[in-house]
């Protein structure tokens, strides 16, 4: 083994240990804020694996989109909904966990068998390496042009949909006095998130 391949192997082992431990932590840790930060670690180690696979552009996109946008979005959502609540106990929860664990282990065994018994066409053509970014650009503007443009439409639709779904109802007049009011103020005052609600707690 050369020094380069040994280094690659060490990088792969470290990244895969980080990946597996981080993903288990995301699923198993009781505190969801820790889970969100571990999810960022998982995304970063996946980006490192992309670098090992000669895909520098996708690794950069992974860091920008997942770590920079999705993970921050998840952290914001956690901060917005982070109310201490005790989840009601469910009968048979442990049995459910064990059964779904068995199903997932079966799925894992199936995937393992598929990946080890399939006769892959190895070795394939030599990877393009550093020219990967150029090839991706050629693909995006020739044979994948329609999906590329549709992706922009999809992002626009998702953006508008997220705004419409997450927007609070705004009253143009005060509900109590009936006067027209500043919408910024009324939105802050009437939101259910910030109101202390003794009435709701009595009913529920």
């Amino acid at each position, binding site marked *: 083994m050369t020094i380069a391949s040994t280094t690659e192997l060490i990088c*792969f082992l470290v990244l895969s240990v980080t990946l597996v431990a981080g993903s288990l932590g995301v699923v198993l840790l009781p505190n969801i804020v820790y889970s969100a930060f571990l999810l960022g670690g998982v995304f970063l180690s996946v980006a490192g694996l992309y670098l090992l696979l000669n895909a520098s552009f996708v690794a950069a996109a992974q860091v920008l989109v997942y770590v920079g946008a999705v993970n921050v979005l998840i952290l914001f959502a956690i901060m917005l909904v982070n109310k201490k609540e005790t989840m009601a106990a469910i009968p048979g929860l442990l049995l459910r966990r064990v059964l779904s664990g068995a199903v997932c282990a079966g799925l894992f065994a199936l995937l393992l068998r598929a990946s080890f018994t399939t006769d892959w066409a190895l070795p394939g053509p030599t990877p393009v390496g550093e020219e990967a970014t150029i090839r991706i650009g050629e693909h995006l503007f020739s044979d994948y042009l329609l999906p590329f443009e549709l992706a922009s439409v999809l992002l626009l639709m998702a953006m508008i949909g997220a705004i419409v779904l997450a927007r609070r109802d705004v009253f143009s007049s005060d509900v109590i006095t009936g006067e027209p009011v500043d919408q910024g103020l009324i939105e802050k005052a009437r939101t259910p998130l910030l109101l202390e609600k003794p009435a709701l707690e009595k009913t529920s």
Partner: protein
Amino acid sequence: MILALVLPGFSNGIPLQAYLVLAAVLFCTGVWGLINSRNAVRVLMSIELMLNAVNLNLMAFSNYLDGQLIRGQVFAIFVITVAAAEAAVGLAILLSLYRNRETVDMERFNLLRW
């Protein structure tokens, strides 16, 4: 040298199957978390884990089997785009649900069940 002794299958570089096994572990963890999480935000995180596993598979196949055309990398970019849109819409739905139900417990989101 020591590494080569410990891992005999890795003597000619990292095999394709190593990436496939890693992606399988990630995907199964994501499926388990998706089924068993009671916090709705954690369900979304599990979906992201599964999408990353699929992307890892695409990149591994693109590097090992399709090294000249790298169609897997292009496809992974589209998956990343769709995942970003899904995360945005999913979290917006989650916020709206939280305003209506005052909880993030998945067991209590049964408005449409009966």
